[in-house]
């Protein structure tokens, strides 16, 4: 299986227009103005996806598809968003709570309309027929949603096999409803899509997989370094690479206030990195680095900068080793601002020369929620592609 940046662009555009169709059908059906925030093509492992569903306690409706393409689509909600959606569909009715028959059947109806519209777009593009199954409702983590993802006649080889996930974040702002529309094609179907986009000179998917492993190792190292520095046990919750339209990068963050650092890195690849904490996390981590001290603002800033430095080197050192290059890091700049606005200038610098970006994001957290640390890395697209070529198995 080969992938290249141009076919990723095709995928991204297709997924986005499919999601807009799906959003439009919800607007027409229910009068709920729905927008597509961000469309991402994510490369991760089965375990990554599974973990996300379990950790976020998602309520989801699954629809399988087969024929010209095989796989699964999923509409996933937080329980609160699901409830608000049911309430918006049937205002004033009792029984909107998650799990009631009424709630379940209305979510299934919504999924049928939206996911059906989404899949139609792909069928048109590929000039083929795709059949969809009836919707299945899955309530949170009990039975492992990915097993469901696979129940329709295809299986991924192992938990660590890399899979492509098309993920669209949708939002109905008036009703504070947020949800995700996922599409997970079977490995064979990815080949079908890649062939249809007709690109040559593609990189074998193994290169992306090797890079994705490298990111996971970097996140593990960063987590170990934070633990060593603070004495608090941390784990990597998410670590993934996605391909997004450049404007989707800041839109992946909310406008809540974050504190942290921003750095530039230089080498192959060069790029930008932001290490961000929510405010309580930043306070907790600064306190753990300044034990027994009150610490004025300047001390807290320098503690945050210090941790930013450590996390960045932990995160990037492995890249240089694997890629056989040197990556230099600028001094960390302290930031305390609206999350999406912090990342906006980084994406904008890259937007001068690229329309899409590889967004690498990792989340490191403590078991007791004492702090959460989000890492966003934005390598220059062309330089990353060069780096990926070096990871390609010899021909």
């Amino acid at each position, binding site marked *: 299986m080969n992938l290249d940046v141009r076919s990723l662009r095709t995928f991204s555009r297709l997924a986005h227009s499919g999601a807009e169709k799906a959003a439009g059908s919800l607007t027409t059906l229910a009068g709920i*103005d729905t927008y597509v925030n961000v469309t991402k093509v994510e490369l991760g492992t089965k375990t990554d996806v599974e973990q996300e569903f379990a950790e976020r306690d998602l309520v989801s409706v699954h629809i399988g598809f087969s024929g010209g393409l095989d796989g699964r689509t999923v509409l996933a909600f937080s329980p609160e968003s699901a409830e608000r959606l049911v309430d918006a569909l049937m205002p004033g009715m009792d029984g909107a709570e998650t799990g009631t028959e009424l709630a379940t059947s209305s979510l299934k109806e919504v999924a049928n309309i939206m996911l*059906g519209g989404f899949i139609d777009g792909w069928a048109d593009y590929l000039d083929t027929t795709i059949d969809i199954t009836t919707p299945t409702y899955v309530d949170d983590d009990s039975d492992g949603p990915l097993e469901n993802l696979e129940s329709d006649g295809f299986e991924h080889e192992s938990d660590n096999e890399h899979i492509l996930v098309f993920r669209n974040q949708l939002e109905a702002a008036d009703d504070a409803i947020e949800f995700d529309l996922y599409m997970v094609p079977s490995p064979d179907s990815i080949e079908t899509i890649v062939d249809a986009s007709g690109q040559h000179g593609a990189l074998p998917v193994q290169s992306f997989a090797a890079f994705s492993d490298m990111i996971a190792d970097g996140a593990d190292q960063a987590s170990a370094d934070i633990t060593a520095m603070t004495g608090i046990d941390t784990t990597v919750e998410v670590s993934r690479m996605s391909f997004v339209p450049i404007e989707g990068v800041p839109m992946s963050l909310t*406008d809540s206030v974050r504190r942290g650092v921003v750095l530039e890195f230089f080498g192959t690849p060069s790029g930008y990195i932001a290490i961000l904490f929510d405010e309580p996390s930043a306070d907790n981590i600064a306190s753990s680095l300044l034990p027994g001290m009150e610490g004025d603002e300047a001390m807290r800033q320098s503690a945050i900068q210090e941790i930013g430095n450590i996390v960045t080197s932990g995160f990037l050192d492995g890249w240089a080793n694997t890629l056989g290059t040197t990556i230099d890091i600028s001094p960390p700049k302290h930031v*305390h*601002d*609206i999350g*999406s606005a912090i*990342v906006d200038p980084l994406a904008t610098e890259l937007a001068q020369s690229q329309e899409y970006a590889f967004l690498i994001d990792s989340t490191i957290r403590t078991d007791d929620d004492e702090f959460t640390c989000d890492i966003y890395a934005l390598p220059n697209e062309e330089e990353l592609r060069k780096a990926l070529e070096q990871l390609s198995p010899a021909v």
Partner: protein
Amino acid sequence: MQVYTTDTTSTHSARIKVGIADYAFGTDGNTLTTSGLGSCIGVALYDAEAGVSGLAHAMLPEADPDGDPAKFADTGIEALLAEMRDEGADTSRIVAKLAGGSAMFDFESSNGGKSIGERNVEAARKTLEKHGIDIVAEDVGGSHGRSLELDGKTGDLRVRSAKTGDQTL
């Protein structure tokens, strides 16, 4: 597959969210919002008489011929103006408010030239001047992020900042 019919046309949402590299207009006194302006520029346009308001959120100053017009200050403003005129707005009555265009970081890779934020503000001014549109208020530059809310009933532009607090232009 079930067929759904509905005779409720799409309701006019009171709030319209404008993404990044995006613009939108409202004709029913809608509130237009956008968030996460760092170096990006937000351009609020308002024709009180026609009751038409518009908000653009552009990333870069000048258009690249292959790019999405909404991404750039010059073509984004042009495109928004065209849509507002279709809704009955008149360029001679439209007034503008600007917010954003900050220089949050001094990147080594940008070689010390003008920041993208400054260039975004310049491009927006130039395009508005070309159409004879007055900038009646602005909150641009600095080194902080902003989120915006344009009240389509009054033309008030609320600017939220984590650093300098909230203000209404």
